[in-house]
């Protein structure tokens, strides 16, 4: 089985929020509104955000029949705001989550979801056939099909008998 060089933090999405095991749960019911404001700030900082404000989406990658599949959850992102590029074994995903339905009269009570740009690059274990790359976005889940380049496939070499 091929390995991926880019070592990443393997965090289940269940660990995304600070709230699980929150020791202040009981206290919060009394002073909910005040704590909510702070908790909102805390959970936002849980996203893996670079100083430039770009966060790195999490990826699941697997291989089947000499094809790599990369899957990423991009809720709230429109198809036209996703950009994929593949060059050799370098895979780059860019996406922008635009603010939706921002009403002027709205006040924010909780903010765990961040908007803005997301970017992720990955060094794949072998060269990809860039022309064969396909991507499908469905219900906020993007699945990218990355077929192995012919040059990277194992070839059976016939030994000629003289």
């Amino acid at each position, binding site marked *: *089985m*091929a*390995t*991926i060089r*880019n070592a*990443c*933090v*393997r*965090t*289940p*999405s*269940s*660990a*995304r*929020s600070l*709230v*699980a*095991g*929150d020791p202040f*749960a009981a206290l*919060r*019911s009394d002073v*909910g509104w005040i704590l*909510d404001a702070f908790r909102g700030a805390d*959970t936002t900082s849980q996203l893996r955000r670079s100083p430039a404000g770009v966060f790195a989406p*999490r*990826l*699941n*990658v*697997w*291989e*089947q029949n000499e094809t*790599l599949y990369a*899957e990423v*959850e*991009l*809720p*709230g*992102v*429109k198809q036209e705001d996703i950009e994929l590029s593949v060059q050799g074994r370098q895979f780059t995903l860019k996406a922008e989550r635009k603010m*939706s*339905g921002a*009403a002027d*009269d*709205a*006040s*924010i*009570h*909780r*903010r*765990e*979801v961040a908007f803005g740009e997301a970017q992720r690059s*990955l060094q794949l*274990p072998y060269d990809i056939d860039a022309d064969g790359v396909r991507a499908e976005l469905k*219900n*906020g*889940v993007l*699945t990218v099909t990355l077929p192995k380049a012919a040059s990277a496939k194992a070839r059976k070499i016939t030994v000629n008998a003289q």
Partner: protein
Amino acid sequence: MNTTESTSSQSGRHYRPDVNIRETSDAFLLHLDMPGTKAETISLTFDNGTLHVQGDVAPRQPDSTEYLLREYGVGNFSRSFEINRRIDAANISADYSDGVLTVTVPKAEDSKPKKIQVKVEPKNLN
């Protein structure tokens, strides 16, 4: 509006969707990230002041899949919200698109902000 943690991810079977909660003059709007579910598998219940949101997510790859990279888990979503405000429970509505569930919780008519007219006494011209 508070959230209860009774259905947190600690069970290992449910994922807690991230949420943004906004308040307008008419309603509370909950935007929950629930990628990979389907509108027909999402259930919403409001009982005794608690709004419970549940969305089933079918596995997208067979169990035997060997991942080269596995940075997130996939499973059902579940989260509860304690609503300690006066709301119009009969008219809660929800819409699912692009993996985001938007729940509109209208405020009770008598709890909406009202504009109060300040009466101006006619000037007493003497």
